[in-house]
């Protein structure tokens, strides 16, 4: 579908606006509630892991969730295929 068609799609623009806003605001809230050190933590972890394995920025995600009175720091590292391991 070309850009021209996009503007002529059947959906009305208010619905598009609402959908975009809902996603945007959910994302804003997610970032707002994170402590400010998380991006730095993510970068430093990435640097350490890169010493041993070839990975990209996107392969490491760090997030903090709150559940009642405890906080959970969740760390996700997607390791690549075996061939990418660096030799010590």
């Amino acid at each position, binding site marked *: 579908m070309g850009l021209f068609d996009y503007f002529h799609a059947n959906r*009305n*623009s*208010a*619905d598009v*606006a*609402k959908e*975009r*806003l*809902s996603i*945007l*605001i959910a994302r*804003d*809230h997610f970032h*707002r509630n994170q402590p400010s050190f998380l991006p730095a933590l993510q970068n430093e972890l990435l640097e350490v892991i890169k010493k041993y394995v070839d990975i990209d920025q996107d392969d490491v995600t760090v997030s903090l969730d709150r559940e009642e009175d405890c906080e959970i720091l969740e760390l996700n590292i997607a390791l690549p295929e075996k061939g990418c391991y660096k030799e010590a």
Partner: protein
Amino acid sequence: MTRIIVVTSGKGGVGKTTTSAAFATGLALQGYKTAVIDFDVGLRNLDLVMGCERRVVYDFVNVITKEASLNQALIRDKRIENLYILPASQTRDKEALTMEGVETVINELKETFDYIVCDSPAGIEHGAYMAMYFADEAIVVTNPEISSVRDSDRILGLLASKTKRVVENKTPVKEHLLLTRYAPERVKNGEMLSVDDIHEILSIPLLGVIPESQSVLTASNQGIPVIINKNSRAGLAYSDCIGRFLGEEIELRFINTKKGGIFGKLFGGR
């Protein structure tokens, strides 16, 4: 007990000054002694909307720097009893609003006023921060347009984290959503976010909806707050907001498309 109300939005041009002027005037008309402060230092405009620009001698910054007393700087409205305006400085920059200075002025106003309305500048910089810091209640002015809604959400985040009430562990700032420039016809055609959509996204109590209206421009041209105009839909909608703010239950009007008939003819486009 004095209540301090900040009129804020994040985004510029959505109607903060129009709303501040209407609100302060409306509260004064109900008999409450009300002061409205322009926090937009460097871009003074409230005096124009209130029609007292030629009577400005001293301003908010002069009071903070003790070059003038509060009584010298406060302008008494010529039309409405109980209404006073504290204009912003046109020549200084926003850093002139020190936290201590603003607090001193607000505390002095609290001795005699029932309501203090703070007209915030756009943005989330120092001036906006000072305008919201001492607030008990916040009127978040929003247009049915995505960037305005997103900015309002950002401001709500700041109200919940950066105000004196939060710092002092008091009950949070009471938030009110005010939707302005609403065009029911465009909502009906699916071209504009509806009041329900925005209410759902921002999820704070709705104070009112001000319809898009030519009378808002006419009022600011003349320097007469639009709430005084009883032939204007926007003016009447603002009056309803004052009633709701003071605890009355008033149904929303002007949010559906015109039905024609005498009411539509009377208020068509006004």
